[in-house]
């Protein structure tokens, strides 16, 4: 968490990144950028999913609907923050010639998405039955 706060400073200060290490092959930087964009798309998809739950499941009870939508939106926010944080960390690791940082986030995100999907199936089935 402390490292996250330290990385936040780097988000706004490109010159701090440029100071350390050497410039890596531009293709590695572009690959890192594409990975960042893929995570950002995931975040945008989760945010869109939050909107979709709210709009396309109108017969759901208010609490369930808002709860599911907010869970998806929160996952999207986390995903977007993590995207830029991971990008900065990878960029710095490449400049220093270190190993790329390992991350538990993909596992966490897939578990959250799986749980939300299961809950959604149950809620929709219960809505049909009731």
């Amino acid at each position, binding site marked *: 968490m402390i490292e996250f706060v330290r990385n936040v400073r*780097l*988000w*706004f*200060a*490109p010159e701090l*990144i440029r100071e350390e290490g050497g*410039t890596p*092959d*531009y*293709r590695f*930087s*572009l*690959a890192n*950028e*594409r990975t*960042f*964009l*893929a995570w*950002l*798309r995931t*975040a*945008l*998809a989760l*945010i*869109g999913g*939050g*909107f*979709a739950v*709210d*709009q396309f499941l109108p017969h759901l009870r208010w609490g369930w*609907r*808002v709860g599911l*939508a*907010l869970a998806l*939106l929160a996952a*999207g*926010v986390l995903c*977007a*923050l993590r*995207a*830029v944080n991971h*990008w*900065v960390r990878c*960029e710095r690791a490449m400049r220093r010639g270190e190993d790329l940082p390992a991350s538990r986030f993909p596992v966490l995100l897939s578990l959250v998405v799986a749980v939300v999907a299961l809950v959604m199936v149950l809620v929709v089935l219960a809505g049909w039955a009731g």
Partner: protein
Amino acid sequence: MSAGDSSGPGDSSGAADSPGPVGPPGGADPVGTAGSPAAPVRDPGLQPERTRLAWRRTTLSATVAAVLAVRAALRDGATPAGVVACGVCGLLWLAFLVLAHRRIRALAAGPRPDTLTPRRATAAVLCALAMAVCAAALVS
């Protein structure tokens, strides 16, 4: 003597030419293209193009999210709050579009484009975050 002289530049030019298409970008120097200005040096892995398309895809995702946001905002008719939310989401989408467009232009500028700046990455992420905040306000 003369054989050694002639083989020297021959070797070095061969070494400079052969890694050009496959090796690191040091081999592909646009300065030496005297006779062919029409043929720009191209990355054989098409990395800038792929990155450009990744930006396009991300813009498309942002568009879908923005359209859903506008739909949510105007569902209950054109209430003042709905119109404001609609405008905010439209502006966020526009901001993202401008960011992506600038980056795409930078990628197309040369054979060896600059690295994405953290400021631009953060700005793109902030657009997504603001849209999520907008969504949370609209949903609840």
